């Protein structure tokens, strides 16, 4: 009897059971094999793992083969120990405790590691669910959410809310780019990344003051309160939308209501319903309105009311828009009746010579002007019919001037009316450019040297004529100058009496020249309305100023060029050939436009919205008009 082996098993309940085996040999085998003296059934243990040799007062443990065991945490292959000294050796999951009892070696064998497998050691859900991989819904949700909020909410607000100078321009641009809701219109493109330029305060809609700060010159269509009054009764839908807009602090009548930015170049409201919302039956709501009611161009547009000159003035002419084309037509008929057929029977071309001082105008009466009758009182006497005759003296003059001066066999409209480069209107007609080729102001030709009057300066003309003719009479009397030169010494032979007479008569002779030029048959009289002086001895002739309109319809914009086709002649729209007076307004009526142009939704005709001709911000006179967006751009 050399050793006692006690195999200890602990139950789950904590109860301990011990199986004791007595061994009689000095050599004990330790291993997994069933015939081992100390049987350790675990795959981590070798079949014959180690050998225990007991000698007098000591014992020796030696591992076999490559096996090892642990004592005090160290893996070793051999240990010798005095009997009685305690020793714990670990073999895989087993611990072997060596002790001594009554001179015998006692070995307590106990499994200290429970049987566990990889499969058992984990909870089943951990195996099957993705929850235990690196994926995580919660952290990803927080991560993504906060990242987006930081980049797209906190960063832009922090940038916009900070003083401009403290934020790098690049950051502001980036923030603007993040939030921009659509491209700006072309002219505003520069402001695209500077949100604060228009959006001055957070959560406050863009105000008109901000727009007007730059657009100082832009004409308001009308007073805002008046525009609201002009608007017809709102439909239920409109009322609802108005309520919503008011609730969200978007007041009515703002610039931005029509100028819907962030829609590229399409953002300006140009649909006709915006206009007819007010202008349809508006005069009932605004009795003092100066414009007529309109609901659709094709069906319901008032007749044109040309703006004509009531009193010509070089600086501030008086204009009126009181007549319709119908009124003006009546005025034309009345003028022609008053003038009588005989007065116009023959055009006097007698003595007409280009570049000669003896130009004779056509006799005219007051009825040639719009004076007192509906018509354009421009102050100029200009019968279109005479100038457009295919035969007669005007055509003859045109032939004489020939193609060198740009004339054909007769006078054409384009000889005087030159189209502007933009194709919309015409260059103003002027004496110098358009009349003087035929209507010369040369009054004398002295030795091949032409003396010419200055156009448009009555006082200057009178002074020039007086100076010239007095000097000539006096010069002739003195024997110098003048047109009939004499041989030297001849003057001296003239009598002192002749000279005295010449000096005395010179002013009268000069004055008669002045009177002639301002009277019937005189150069000025033909085209201008002259008021003779009150006293017979006075030379204070007054020429009525001339004001020529470059457009009779300033509230609309008519581009001529798109209407110029091979078949279409000026006379198709402008009855110039039969017009006997410059008081005639040769504008076509609305019906002639409606022959081709219908309303915005016309089926057969050219669809024509309001803005094709009218500008919302147009001023009446004197200011540059905005080109209506709908108008076709001149080629």
């Amino acid at each position, binding site marked *: 009897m050399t050793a006692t082996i006690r195999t200890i098993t602990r139950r789950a309940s904590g109860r301990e059971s011990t199986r004791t085996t007595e061994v009689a040999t000095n050599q004990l085998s330790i291993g*997994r094999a*069933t015939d081992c003296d100390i049987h350790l*059934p*675990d*795959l*981590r243990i*070798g*079949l014959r793992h180690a050998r225990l040799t007991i000698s007098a007062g000591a014992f020796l443990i030696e591992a076999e*083969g*490559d096996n090892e065991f642990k004592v005090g945490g160290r893996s070793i292959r051999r240990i010798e120990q005095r009997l009685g000294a305690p020793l714990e050796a670990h073999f895989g999951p087993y611990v072997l405790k060596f002790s001594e009892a009554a001179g015998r070696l006692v070995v307590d064998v106990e499994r200290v590691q429970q*049987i566990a*497998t*990889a*499969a*058992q050691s*984990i909870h*089943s*859900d*951990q*195996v*099957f*669910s*993705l*929850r235990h*991989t*690196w*994926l*995580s*819904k919660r952290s*990803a*949700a927080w*991560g*993504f*959410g906060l990242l*987006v*909020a930081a980049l*797209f*909410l906190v960063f832009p*607000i922090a940038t*916009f809310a900070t003083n401009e100078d403290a934020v790098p321009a690049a950051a502001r641009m980036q923030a603007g*780019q*993040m*939030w*921009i*809701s*659509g491209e700006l219109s072309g002219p505003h493109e520069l402001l695209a990344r500077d*949100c604060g330029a228009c*959006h001055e305060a*957070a*959560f*406050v809609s863009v105000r008109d003051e901000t727009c007007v700060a730059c657009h100082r010159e832009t004409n308001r269509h009308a007073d805002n309160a008046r525009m609201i009054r002009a608007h017809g009764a709102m439909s239920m839908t409109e009322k609802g*939308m108005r309520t*919503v807009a008011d609730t*969200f*602090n*978007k007041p009515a009548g703002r610039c931005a209501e029509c100028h*819907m930015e962030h*829609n590229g170049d399409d953002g300006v*409201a140009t649909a006709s319903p*915006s206009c007819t919302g007010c202008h349809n039956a508006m005069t009932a709501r605004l009795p003092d309105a100066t414009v007529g009611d309109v609901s659709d161009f094709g069906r319901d547009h008032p007749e044109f009311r040309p703006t004509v000159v009531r009193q010509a003035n070089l600086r501030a002419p008086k204009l009126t828009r009181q007549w319709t084309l119908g009124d003006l037509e009546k005025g034309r008929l009345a003028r022609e009746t008053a003038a009588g057929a005989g007065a116009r029977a023959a055009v006097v071309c007698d003595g007409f010579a280009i570049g000669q001082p003896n130009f004779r105008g056509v006799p005219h009466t007051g009825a040639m002007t719009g004076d007192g009758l509906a018509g354009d009182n421009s102050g100029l006497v200009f019968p279109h019919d005479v100038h457009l005759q295919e035969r007669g003296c005007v055509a003859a003059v045109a032939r004489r001037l020939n193609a060198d001066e740009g004339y054909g066999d007769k006078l054409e409209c384009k000889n005087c009316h030159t189209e502007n480069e933009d194709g919309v209107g015409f260059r103003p007609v002027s004496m110098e450019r358009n009349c003087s080729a035929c209507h010369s102001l040369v009054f004398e030709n002295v030795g091949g040297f032409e003396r010419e009057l200055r156009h448009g300066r009555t006082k200057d003309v009178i002074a020039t004529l007086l100076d010239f003719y007095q000097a000539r009479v006096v010069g002739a009397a003195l024997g110098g100058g003048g047109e009939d030169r004499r041989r030297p010494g001849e003057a001296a032979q003239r009598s002192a009496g002749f000279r005295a007479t010449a000096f005395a008569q010179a002013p009268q002779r000069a004055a008669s020249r002045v009177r002639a030029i301002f009277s019937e048959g005189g150069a000025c009289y033909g085209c201008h309305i002259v008021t003779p002086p009150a006293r017979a001895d006075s030379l204070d002739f007054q020429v009525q100023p001339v004001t020529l309109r470059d457009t009779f319809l300033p509230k609309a914009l008519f581009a001529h060029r798109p209407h110029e086709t091979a078949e279409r002649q000026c006379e198709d729209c402008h009855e110039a050939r039969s017009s006997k007076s410059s008081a005639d307004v040769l504008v076509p009526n609305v019906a002639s436009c409606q022959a081709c142009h219908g309303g915005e939704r016309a089926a057969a005709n050219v669809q024509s919205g309001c803005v094709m001709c009218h500008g919302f911000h147009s001023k009446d006179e004197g200011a540059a008009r905005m080109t209506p967006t709908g108008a076709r751009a001149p080629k």
Partner: protein
Amino acid sequence: MAKRGELVDRRSGARHESFLRHHDYFYLKFAVVACVAAIGIYIFTSPAPRHNGGTWYGYTLGTISALLIVWLTLLGLRKRAITAGKWSLKGWTSAHVYLGLSLIVLATLHTGFQFGWNVHTLAYVLMTIVIVSGLFGIYFYATVPARMSDNRAEKSTAQMVEEIAALDNDLREAAQPLSEANAIVVQHAIDNTKLGGGVFARLRNTHPSCATQHALDTLKAAAARAPRVQGGGAGEFAQVTSLLERKTVLLERARRHIRYRALLELWLYIHVPVTFALLAALIAHIVSVFYFW
């Protein structure tokens, strides 16, 4: 005969109606009508200057869509309280699916087909990702559970794990007579056979370095080499290899189950986090509009 999408519970015989067919496709019909109406209004109205988020119709669609997104998100809270009846969780889920899909139409009309590199389009893109991931979810929920249930053979996941553990114990016993080298291989198969693993391993379901398969291969080779005459040796091999073979079958089943679970769950790992990114983008989108009003 049960219609497609309708399963009959094998034990109770109760008819199972999927969330897709709930209430005879009530929410599908509702969503279709809503979408057709939205498209009709879009075509037959022409707000100035053009359709986009800033017209009366744009704001209307935007408000509806935003509220819808918030409501759809609330399924995450609602699903934690399972109730029956008219407002059952199934009904809620059915509405979640069909109304969520209708957002593709409503939100697209809201944009007026204006897109750009900004927070507005970001919100739209995130919403699209959420919806598309949801579509994957619907597909997997419609196809995977049947296969999963066939594969499971009416065993719970805990039972699957227990079976494998029991086999491990048997293996431990059966491998006792094996030589050092072979015992180590078997022990390795017990200790180091992995279930689960990384996301991609779960989806691929290929396990080239499976310890159990390796042990099986090794022991089969050893058995082939072992001399037949030496009685007992081949028998011990036979028991162990038989156990290992059974274990590989169980492992295959468990791993297929793991793959199915991964398919059922993976889309949610996109659906849920991107939803929260979407909510943040949606707030930024709305705030940006009113901030620069």
